[in-house]
């Protein structure tokens, strides 16, 4: 029994790490612009798919170069989304921007379908497919890549927002746009940076998991939903809350798939999300906003 649980935990953390990265992407864009970006999942898909496309065939790039290329492509898509879809709707209500990002995600999925078709694609594993034995459980080397990569990216994002002027300037744009203008921050550029970063995180998540879960034009849908759940579970706008929410969601799914039934894993995840929102509407780690006039 214990061995099985260890196996479920390892799987849960691997899946949860992806959710965490997608959730972090949600939190970054929400923090910078109060927009809930429902094309976050598409960033993951575009990252994975372009890495496959760039590395495929005899003339393909080596894996590391394909990964860098895929991240850059996804960042461009993210910035284009901000510039051409979100920025023109300046001052629109939250619901309007949500509809815009849902529209953008359908559009991106459609383009991916035209370019790559409906096939499943996989990247080669980064360092072999020989499972590593831990007690009676096993773990793929690629899972270690996912966990390690996610941990590094999360720490990088944490450092960026807490210790760099650029990171704080992005936070400033979200808490008071007019004041950000008045201290000389170029708000337009900051929003582009936030979308670019968020897209890059999504792309890296997509590349890290592509060898395990495969990638197709519609992988972004479910991942986007899971990332969104992670972000609100942790408390929207709290980047580290989103990461914790993602890991938690991954663990819940994996344990319920293993111990109850794999058919119910998504349902159980969403039910727990609803319960959390019912009892703590600002999420597990969200705090009521501090403001005094």
């Amino acid at each position, binding site marked *: 029994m214990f061995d099985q649980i260890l196996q479920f935990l390892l799987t849960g953390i691997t899946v949860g790490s992806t959710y965490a990265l997608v959730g972090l992407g949600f939190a970054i864009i929400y923090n910078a612009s109060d927009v809930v970006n429902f094309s976050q999942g598409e960033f993951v898909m575009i990252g994975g798919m372009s890495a496959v496309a760039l590395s495929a065939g005899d003339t393909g790039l080596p894996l590391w170069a394909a990964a860098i290329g895929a991240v850059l492509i996804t960042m461009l898509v993210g910035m284009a989304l901000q510039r051409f879809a979100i920025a023109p709707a300046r001052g629109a209500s939250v619901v309007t921007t949500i509809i815009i990002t849902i529209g953008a995600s359908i559009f991106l999925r459609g383009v991916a379908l035209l370019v790559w078709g409906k096939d499943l694609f996989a990247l080669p594993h980064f360092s072999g497919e020989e499972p590593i034995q831990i007690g009676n459980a096993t773990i793929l080397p690629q899972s270690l890549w996912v966990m390690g990569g996610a941990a590094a990216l999360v720490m990088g994002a944490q450092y960026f927002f807490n210790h760099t*002027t650029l990171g704080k300037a992005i936070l400033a744009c979200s808490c008071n746009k007019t004041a950000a203008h008045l201290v000389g921050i170029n708000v337009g550029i900051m929003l582009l940076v936030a979308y670019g970063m968020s897209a890059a995180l999504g792309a890296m998540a997509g590349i890290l998991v592509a060898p395990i879960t495969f990638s197709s034009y519609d992988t972004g849908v479910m991942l986007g939903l899971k990332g969104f759940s992670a972000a609100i579970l942790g408390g929207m706008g709290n980047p580290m809350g989103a990461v914790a929410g993602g890991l938690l969601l991954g663990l819940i799914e994996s344990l319920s798939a293993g111990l109850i039934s794999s058919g119910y894993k998504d349902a159980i995840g969403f039910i727990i999300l609803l319960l959390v929102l019912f009892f703590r509407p600002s999420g597990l780690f969200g705090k009521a906003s501090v403001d005094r006039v």
Partner: protein
Amino acid sequence: MPSDALLQVEALTAHYGPIQALNGISLEVKPGELVAMVGANGAGKTTLLHTLSNVHKSSGGKVIFDGQEITRTAPHKIVQAGICHIPEGRQVFAPLSVEDNLLLGGFTQRKNKAWVEEELAKIYTLFPILKEKRRQAAGTLSGGQQQMLAMGRALLGRPKLLLLDEPSMGLAPLLVAEIFRVVRELNEKGVTILLVEQNAKAALGIADRGYVLETGRVVLSADADELLADEAVQKAYLGH
């Protein structure tokens, strides 16, 4: 018109949709001056400052700063040019720490770390309470402390001209006196200031010159002492 003014505004107009908020405002601020713009609520004082910083677009007229026309310059470039704006209602970055707020004030000077550090130390001497609370979220400060923070933040932008919007708003009289003392002190140290205030008595009390704004128009302009003595001004704004 040749001019030695630091800021020159010519026939500036601004609209909110179809409603005209500024009806052709002309004014000037010379280097080293402390100029007060007084007027009732809704006269267009805040709109004027927002239009100068170009966070509200003007619909006509010209703004010339330091010899350059900046009427349509992007807001962040106006700050780079040396106009720092302390907005009405302080507008601090509430969830960020006091020190982060100040450092963001120095965003345009961020390449010049030595200067920012030196200036930060000066601001902590000017407002010791900010140093004491530097790790706290800015939103937890009292109104007066937030006003000090907003002023410190603007000073870190290395202003040639400070636009100060309604610093007395919502503050106890004792604090108002304290804030105005600091404003006067800053001006004596060489910062040029355009101060916009409903509290005409306090503002004209420290200013060199003043303008009276009514429904988007400058209706009077004179030395501050003259305005304080003016019967019409006394009746309308000083409650005599």
